[in-house]
């Protein structure tokens, strides 16, 4: 089991399309987290930034970008890139420094301004980059992958388009009570099923948008938290595992899997192994979780994640959904924040936003979306190019 670190403060800039520089969003999240923790900027010893590679120069140096914006204080910086999993890696770097006695209190921050429409690859002719080639050679978009998984659920487990729509309806309802969500609008199953088909069987209202947003988390040693006289939410595990060869599930942005002809496929597929590593590290299991925040890039993908984080057996996620277990008030609410369905994706901030939600839920501060008596929760997410991300927190 890993040693615990404390979450002293969390803060977010609401998700949306605000048309500003990402630094501005990050500043708000940082200042809110500092206020939440009752700390001053000068108390922070390290800034751990979650970066993205889309925003040019400043985006490449996210840790330092925010240290400069808050006013150079001599704090150390660290910067992590792991696509959608960048936030978890930034938290993990912060945790490692704390557990190595290199620092007591660290500000972790991620922020993004995202372009409109489908996420497209970087410009230019890049004939050795699978992320570029998949668009050029076959028009393979991100929803392509989500749709392939969704269709597979229909053919293997009897999932229906109505099930996928029900996930969206549930998450839209959850997000109504979240002031940081971008969308506050309830949908009926019929409305979802009447939205335009994008990549069959997935419709426009079932595929997550891209958003601007920022999230910050202040972590400290347990000793530092005790000195501040707080009983903090604890980080019990941070999983940042990569796949095991042969990676035999088709994953973005690749257009082939590894071959399992010589080395047999591992017992656990990649998404399962991400949560598994987190449970091992925390010394907890799925049965100990009160809620889960998972990466619903599409409505159908939430069903895959429910199984991958162990909330039910493979093929049973539709039953879990239909029985109301994953909705607020059910046995194990999934995405009580509203999930990506209500946020849209702000890549380097998203894994941190998941941890913010766990923190508010575990403190009992989640208002109209509160999971009653929440004691522990798990986040799960997967970043492009083999970046796993799962964080477990508990009271």
């Amino acid at each position, binding site marked *: 089991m890993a040693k615990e670190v404390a979450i002293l403060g969390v803060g977010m800039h609401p998700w949306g399309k605000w048309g500003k520089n990402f630094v501005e969003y990050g500043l708000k999240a940082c200042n809110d987290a500092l206020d939440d923790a009752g700390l001053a900027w000068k108390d922070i010893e390290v800034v751990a930034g979650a970066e993205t590679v889309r925003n040019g120069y400043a985006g490449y140096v996210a840790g330092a970008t925010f240290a400069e914006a808050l006013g150079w204080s001599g704090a150390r910086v660290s910067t992590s890139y792991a696509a959608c999993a960048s936030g978890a890696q930034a938290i993990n770097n912060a945790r490692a420094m704390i557990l190595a006695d290199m620092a007591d209190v660290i500000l972790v921050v991620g922020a993004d301004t995202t372009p409109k429409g489908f996420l497209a690859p970087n*410009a230019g002719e890049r004939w050795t980059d699978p992320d570029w080639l998949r668009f050029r050679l076959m028009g393979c*978009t991100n929803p392509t992958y989500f749709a*392939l998984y969704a269709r*597979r659920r229909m053919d293997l487990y009897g999932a229906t388009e109505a099930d996928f729509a029900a996930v969206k309806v549930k998450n839209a309802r959850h997000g109504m009570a979240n002031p940081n969500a971008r969308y506050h609008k309830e949908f009926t199953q019929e409305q979802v099923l009447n939205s335009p*088909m994008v990549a069959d069987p997935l419709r426009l209202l079932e595929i997550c948008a891209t958003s601007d947003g920022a999230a910050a988390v202040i972590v400290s040693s347990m000793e530092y938290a005790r000195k501040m006289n707080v009983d903090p939410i604890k980080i019990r595990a941070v999983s940042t595992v990569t796949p095991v060869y042969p990676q035999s599930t088709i994953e973005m942005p690749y257009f082939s899997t590894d071959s399992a002809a010589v080395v047999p496929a591992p017992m656990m597929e990649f998404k399962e192994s991400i949560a598994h590593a987190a449970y091992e590290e925390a010394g907890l299991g799925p049965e100990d979780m009160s809620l889960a925040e998972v990466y619903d890039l599409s409505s159908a993908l939430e069903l895959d994640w429910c199984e991958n984080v162990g909330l039910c057996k493979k093929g049973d996620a539709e039953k879990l959904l239909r029985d109301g277990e994953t909705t607020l008030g059910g046995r194990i609410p999934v995405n009580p924040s509203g999930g990506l369905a209500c946020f849209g994706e702000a890549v380097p901030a998203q894994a941190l936003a998941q941890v913010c939600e766990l923190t508010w839920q575990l403190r009992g501060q989640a208002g109209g979306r509160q999971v009653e008596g929440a004691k522990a929760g798990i986040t799960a997410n997967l970043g492009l190019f083999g970046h796993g991300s799962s964080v477990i927190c508990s009271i």
Partner: protein
Amino acid sequence: MSESKIAPSIEGWYTCGESPHLIGTRCKRCSSYFFPKQEVFCRNPGCRSTEFDEIELSRKGKIWSYTEHFYAPPEPYIFSEPFEPYIIAAVELEEEKMIILGQMAQGVLSQDLTTGLEVELVVEKLYEQDGTDYTVWKWKPAEN
């Protein structure tokens, strides 16, 4: 109409002719298959080979999953107006035990597809640019 030239959209990834194949590599030491071609270092973590044979992959496989697209994807995808929906299938090769994505051949309808359906590789036009038809590999329901 002038005769248009034909060229592959990417060099060295597939053969042409009546029975086209994808071109992959196979590790000389551990026999692992790779597509796209792996030529530098074996990705099997238990192998440190740097030598590979170029091979033709099986040209038949079974549909693992599929999806039809109703919106034009962003660049660098190239297409002629008006945009036509297209299907992408993930196809499992039995011998190589790997899944390879590709568009379905033109004229194939989504309602005729199902998981497990046997398909074969064809080479077909992907887009036209400056009087040249650029081809790519695609999948097509197999003829028995």
